């Protein structure tokens, strides 16, 4: 089955007219720069003057030109006391302490792993920051360093928390039973800005699908694991946690996982922020309309789904 459509030519969109600097001042005089103190957030684009530079500290995403503070990226203006920053709409993930991230091992180095978290740099996962088989309190041995690939190999996906982050360097840890290697599912990648920080990044949808919304834009969609089946503290063993073997998954769950993945990708394509409420609504809408899984992503049904879901947003 083939569907062939014409490709839109590139480079058709042009920005608004730019004026000569001497004219620009006259244009800007019309702007009333004080009334945006009342707005909580305002979108700006590069070159737009945010405020006059008196009594204002400029932060990231801005620069000073003449007597004004001008935005250098497209994003949302944030003011904290006297600090003005512009938080870019499209940017790489910046790790912050306490974030939950889904990462992929790219390198096994001496007593640490390098993890790709969709940021500007790879994060680091130290051998001391993972749970070693044999109990939580087990001491690290020299042989553990030589057998690091028994725990995590190149290409493995894991969920971890950011322990320390400074200047782009992030350090991860998996010292909790809900963290660790991921299996029984598939990965969906969305822009990091769309993932909201919620009370819990772990969600369970009623269709038998578990979601892990990584703050870095990596979302793990997997088969539901019941609370009672999760291992307790005493039963922590290497076979279970670091195993690469999937459980038996029935066809209905596989179909549900594909459907949820597609819904996530379509919502991301239309820049809809992701929360479990929105995902629930979108999934129910898709089931009601009886749209086949592939058509969510490839057909035009995706547009209608987004419209109906966003209409319910406040």
């Amino acid at each position, binding site marked *: 089955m083939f569907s062939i*459509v014409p490709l839109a030519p590139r480079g058709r969109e042009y920005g608004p007219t730019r004026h000569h600097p001497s004219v620009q001042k006259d244009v800007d005089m019309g702007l009333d720069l004080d009334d945006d103190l009342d707005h909580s957030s305002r979108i700006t684009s590069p070159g737009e003057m945010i405020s006059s530079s008196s009594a204002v500290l400029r932060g990231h995403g801005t620069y000073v030109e003449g007597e004004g503070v001008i935005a250098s990226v497209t994003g949302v203006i944030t003011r904290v006391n006297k600090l003005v920053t512009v938080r870019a709409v499209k940017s790489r993930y910046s790790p912050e302490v306490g974030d939950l991230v889904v990462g992929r091992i790219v390198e096994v180095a001496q007593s640490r792993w390098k993890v790709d978290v969709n940021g500007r740099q790879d994060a680091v996962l130290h051998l001391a920051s993972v749970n070693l088989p044999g109990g939580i309190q087990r001491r690290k041995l020299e042989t553990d360093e030589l057998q690091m690939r028994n725990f995590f190999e190149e290409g493995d996906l894991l969920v971890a928390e950011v322990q320390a982050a400074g200047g782009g360097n992030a350090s991860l840890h998996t010292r909790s039973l809900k963290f660790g290697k991921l299996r029984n599912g*598939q990965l969906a990648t969305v822009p990091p800005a769309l993932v909201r920080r919620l009370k819990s990044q772990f969600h369970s949808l009623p269709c038998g699908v578990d979601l892990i919304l990584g703050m870095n834009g990596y979302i793990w969609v997997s088969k539901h694991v019941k609370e009672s089946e999760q291992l307790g503290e005493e039963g922590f063993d290497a076979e279970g946690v670091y195993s*690469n073997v999937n459980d038996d998954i029935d066809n209905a769950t596989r179909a549900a996982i594909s459907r949820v993945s597609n819904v996530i990708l379509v919502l991301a394509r239309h820049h809809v922020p992701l929360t479990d409420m929105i995902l629930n609504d979108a999934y129910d809408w898709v089931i009601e309309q009886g749209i086949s*899984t592939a058509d969510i992503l*490839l057909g035009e049904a995706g547009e209608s789904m987004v419209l109906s879901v966003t209409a319910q947003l406040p």
Partner: protein
Amino acid sequence: MVISKSEQSYIRSSLLAGDSHRADGRGLDRFRTISLQAGGDVAPLANGSARVNIGGSEVIAAVKLEGPSGDDEALGRNGGRISCTITCSQSAYPYKTNSQLDETSSDLTSIISSALSSSITPSPQLTIVPNKKSWLLNVDALVLSDAGNILDALFISIRGALWDLKIPRTRGIQFTSREPGDLEGEADIMKGVLRERKQIDAVDFELEDFWEDGDPLVNRDSLPIAISLNILHPIYFLDACLAEEESAPDRLVLFFSFPSPAKSARYSSGGVAPGTLHGIHLMGPGELPYTRLMPLIAQGEKHARELCVALNSMLRGEDAKINAQTTIRR
């Protein structure tokens, strides 16, 4: 891109399950949406160009005609020649080193150029001066991004560029020595034949019209097509995404060409005219038992034929639109 063992095993078990599931819910023989643009603004300076995007795999292809420059290879050749170069851009493979990129590029080039040259050349349309000069088609394709199934995307874009190709009309000329009372310099070959009534061989050529005009290739419907069948015993599937390519690395690549509908209408038995197989490649670490090969080729021919028909009708539609626009402009 390396994926984890559990992801690979999940993809494999989903494909082999009762009603096969793929990551995005497609059927085993369904392609992602193919976006195609032939001619127009893709590469205005080339004689033919096209751009294709299949679910994120984006390729630009362009064809440039080269007249023979006088080296010995070109002399005495009829039917034209085709030379193909595939380049993988660094932005498509950010984690590959330069030498790995070169290796990938040359692998793709060798696979594609043999299939192209056996199916396009020799063609009488590409002969300029019989037994002396013929066109050299330089086909260049650039991989801008790879989201799986890059070989099919490459071939679709090359096919689109060849569909868009316009071959300038030429006229053979010959030089006669000056005789008293006779026309000096060049003479039209037709006039020459009529007047002298002896075999006059043109030795050179000139262009009749401007570079933008020209004739498209005859039998554009029978341009070749490539189809990759990803093999995971006992099933196969089409248009793999990157994760699926990692999980099922064995691939059978088939190059087919099908006769144009006018020719196949004359096919007496009322069935469909069979396609011509121009090349088979088996890629990947696995083995394929011989007994499985023939049924796979038959299935591949079926899919290739469907893809050909879909592409031809879409490109013809685009041509009609462009013609309508130009007539309106005039």
